[in-house]
């Protein structure tokens, strides 16, 4: 494409090598001024790498960058900022015990004479930006006291405060609730009206449809296509992204629930600060049924999982698996009672990253007679066992049993955990955010696995912040708000809006069906 002033950003023929690996191979990107341009691709497709090249974090091995029709060389982020490029990273870079204002001005402090901080002036400038774009946020609140959605606004403010005309948002919706996502999209639109340009990195198709004008698709470092969003539907986008047709809706037959396997009765759990995070919560999971818990982050899901897995104390109430109470025992006891958990934080709780795949596979089994021999590890057995799981679960690269799990992609790391937990042959499988950070292909795989296990007669408890996921996969949908289950529906009996409202603390629909 020709270089023109109409375009805020043009990246032509960008190639980036990591060692011999081609992270980007001759990728083109042309972003019109005043538009919202989505970059779509699976994990590891090169979206973030491309943006890091634009932001000066990486240097391209080949290719040119033009801003407003002029060729530029962006050596480092400071140069990018000078050129009016701002980036909001997926993981926020904020100082927790600083206020919003302090965070925003950090590095570009306004000083009066004698080098004294002029907080008043800074605060005013920030309030101006806040008003202009409807980015409501309290400039005096501390970061640790505000929600994730607010923190993201602070990041956006930070970029705008530095005079950003081109804003890069890296997976901005990964941590937001449906309502917060809507608000973000409206903020994005008000920025566009003011003539800003936004590049949004994402693998969520729905949000692209809702927010963007144009979408560029990248697959395995290759430029695939650039399409006007209005002209394509989600299925087409998914197909372009993955390279083959994918099913976005989970394929499953109606559940045939059996006996109650897992039962929580009037459970109360306190959080780290000693406040009640789970309040008098009750729920049941039956054999051959997927119960999904929908809720906004921070409504007790974390503490609920920690209480079930005995990482934290339950204050009162009981947790029963097959009739045996397991609350306030040990994580090991829970595992031995045939409860398997796919933890949301796979790198912190799920895996020992420097361990090999085989070592990770046996982390709950190394102590069983099958895998030990006179106090020594039965390494051959572990190898053999892992090889089989690698094959069964298509973990890539094949033959990775002796490689550190750190080297695997996020999706494959998750497969390692899923393979491990499912192969425990549990009575109850708890899946917490099992598809977090995974791409469409991998998500499809995880969902299929959950349904397959359900059909094999397992009880499954799915806890997710992705409302779509809960709605799609679960047979029974519970809504958690403020530490308690506020409503329960059968799949298909309820729409997304009702659940969304309940998740945000809205009144329960009078027609809600109580199944407990």
């Amino acid at each position, binding site marked *: 494409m020709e270089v023109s002033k109409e375009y805020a950003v043009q990246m032509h023929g960008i190639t980036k090598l990591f*060692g*011999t690996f081609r992270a980007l191979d001759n990728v083109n990107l042309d972003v019109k001024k005043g538009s919202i341009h989505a970059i779509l691709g699976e994990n590891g497709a090169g979206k973030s790498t491309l943006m890091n090249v634009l932001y000066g974090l990486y240097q391209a091995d080949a290719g040119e960058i033009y801003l407003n029709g002029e060729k530029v060389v962006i050596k480092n982020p400071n140069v990018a900022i000078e050129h009016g490029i701002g980036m909001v990273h997926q993981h926020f870079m904020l100082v927790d015990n600083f206020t919003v204002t302090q965070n925003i001005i950090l590095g570009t402090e306004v000083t009066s004479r004698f080098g004294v901080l002029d907080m008043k002036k800074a605060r005013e400038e920030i309030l101006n930006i806040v008003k202009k774009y409807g980015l409501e946020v309290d400039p005096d609140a501390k970061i640790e006291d505000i929600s994730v959605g607010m923190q993201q606004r602070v990041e956006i403010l930070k970029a705008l405060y530095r005079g950003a005309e081109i804003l890069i948002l890296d997976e901005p919706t990964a941590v937001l609730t449906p309502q917060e996502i809507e608000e973000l999209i409206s903020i994005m639109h008000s920025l566009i009206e003011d003539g800003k340009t936004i590049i949004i990195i994402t693998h969520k198709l729905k949000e692209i449809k809702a927010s963007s004008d144009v979408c560029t698709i990248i697959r395995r470092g290759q430029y695939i296509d650039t399409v006007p969003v209005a002209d394509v539907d989600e299925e087409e986008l998914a197909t372009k992204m993955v390279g083959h047709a994918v099913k976005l809706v989970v394929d499953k037959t109606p559940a045939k629930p059996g006996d109650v396997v897992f039962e929580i009765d009037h459970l109360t759990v306190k959080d780290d600060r000693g406040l009640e995070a789970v309040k008098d919560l009750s729920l049941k999971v039956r054999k051959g049924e997927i119960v999904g818990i929908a809720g906004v982050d921070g409504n007790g899901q974390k503490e609920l999982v920690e209480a079930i897995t005995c990482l934290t104390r339950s204050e009162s109430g009981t947790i029963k698996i097959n009739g045996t109470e397991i609350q306030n025992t040990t*994580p090991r006891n829970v595992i*031995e009672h045939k409860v398997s958990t796919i933890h949301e934080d796979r790198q912190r709780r*799920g895996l*020992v990253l420097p*361990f090999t795949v085989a070592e990770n596979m046996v*982390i709950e089994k190394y102590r069983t007679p099958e895998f030990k021999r006179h106090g020594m590890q039965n390494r051959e057995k572990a190898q053999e066992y892992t090889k089989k799981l690698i094959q069964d679960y298509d973990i890539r690269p094949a033959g990775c049993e002796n490689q550190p799990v750190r080297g695997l992609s996020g999706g494959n790391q998750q497969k390692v955990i899923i393979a491990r937990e499912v192969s425990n042959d549990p009575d109850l499988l708890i899946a917490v955010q099992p598809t977090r950070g995974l791409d469409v292909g991998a998500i499809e795989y995880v969902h299929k696995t959950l349904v397959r296990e359900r059909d094999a007669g397992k009880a499954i408890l799915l806890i997710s912040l992705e409302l779509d996921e809960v709605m799609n996969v679960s047979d029974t949908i519970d809504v958690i708000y403020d530490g308690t289950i506020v409503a329960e529906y059968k799949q298909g009996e309820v729409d997304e809006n009702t659940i969304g409202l309940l998740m945000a603390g809205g009144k329960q629909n009078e027609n809600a069906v109580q199944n407990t």
Partner: protein
Amino acid sequence: MKMLSKILKKQITSTIIALLFGFLVAAIVLAIAGYNPGQAFGALFKGMLSKPKYISNVIIKATPIILTGLSVAFAFKTGLFNIGAEGQYVAGSIAAVLVGVKLNLPAVIQVPLVVLAGVLGGMVFGSVVGFLKAKFGIHEVITSIMLNWISLYLSNFIVSSQAYHLPNSTSTYPVNESSYTMILPKWKTSDAGMAALKPNKWLYEMMLKTDVNVGIVIAILMAVVIWVLLYRSNKGYELRAVGFNRDAAEFAGINVNRNIVQAMLIAGALSGLAGALSITGIAPHKISTLAAFENYGFNGLSVAMIAGSSPIGCVFAGLLFGGLLYGGQSVQQEVGAPTEIINIMIGTIVFFVALTKVVPALAERLEKRGVGHAQ
């Protein structure tokens, strides 16, 4: 090019490069100070290797620091920083003296008892650190530094106590001879022994002029035991899992606190063993009033660092370190350069080992450049 970058990525290569840099910096320092580096290094290596007596002394010098190095390396592999090896070493030597002076049993019983007492002494100091970390979350560096001082003053207290103080000296009574772990200490000085050794000049010099003891055998054995424990046993699997990622280990049903205490217990035992073997194997077989630490434990930190926390690597790093320490004395004698030069060299080596993370990065760059050329 590919070959080269592959070699550069090996840890041993980094260590060797660090060693070379250490020598290079020491050479510069020597030259600035007005000494001939070649001559000084010549004296250093001659002082390490030129006589059987020297070699034997290097080994003797290396034995305790191989063990304290193992102690630090082992703790490190389980996610703990055992800066308390020094205190555990002292605790081990105290315990060995306490038992060795009071008891006088046949050597077959006495030696194991005295050595075990030392091991226990180190274990007690180690496990206190582990317990405080597991129970109250107090960082092991804080507690073990405190315990280092406690052990130093405890040692001085024992020296000055009535029951152990050797009159008109600054030390305790030596442990009874039945506690000695030298190789055939009596026989070698007897007429028959001397006659038997005479034909072999090497053995004769080694045996008679130095405290040849079984310590090195035990140290090497322990290196193997620790390797097996860490990499082949179920316990080691648990310990490493806790070391790498406590949260994941806890979630998988591994008792994190118990493993922390056990790890410190074993680390303490290794340092205590070093202390006990020094008492039983090297003259003067007693403890003296300490004005400052003797650095057996702190040198263990450097050994573990040079070895990259590899148990087997500790043996070689310990020997190298012992050699530098011992050979350094010759530099002073022959060239007149202060032993501090040797300390600077050791410091530089450790410093460059710490920096060697740069080497694999350089290798990466080299690889990339190779790709560029290929195009």
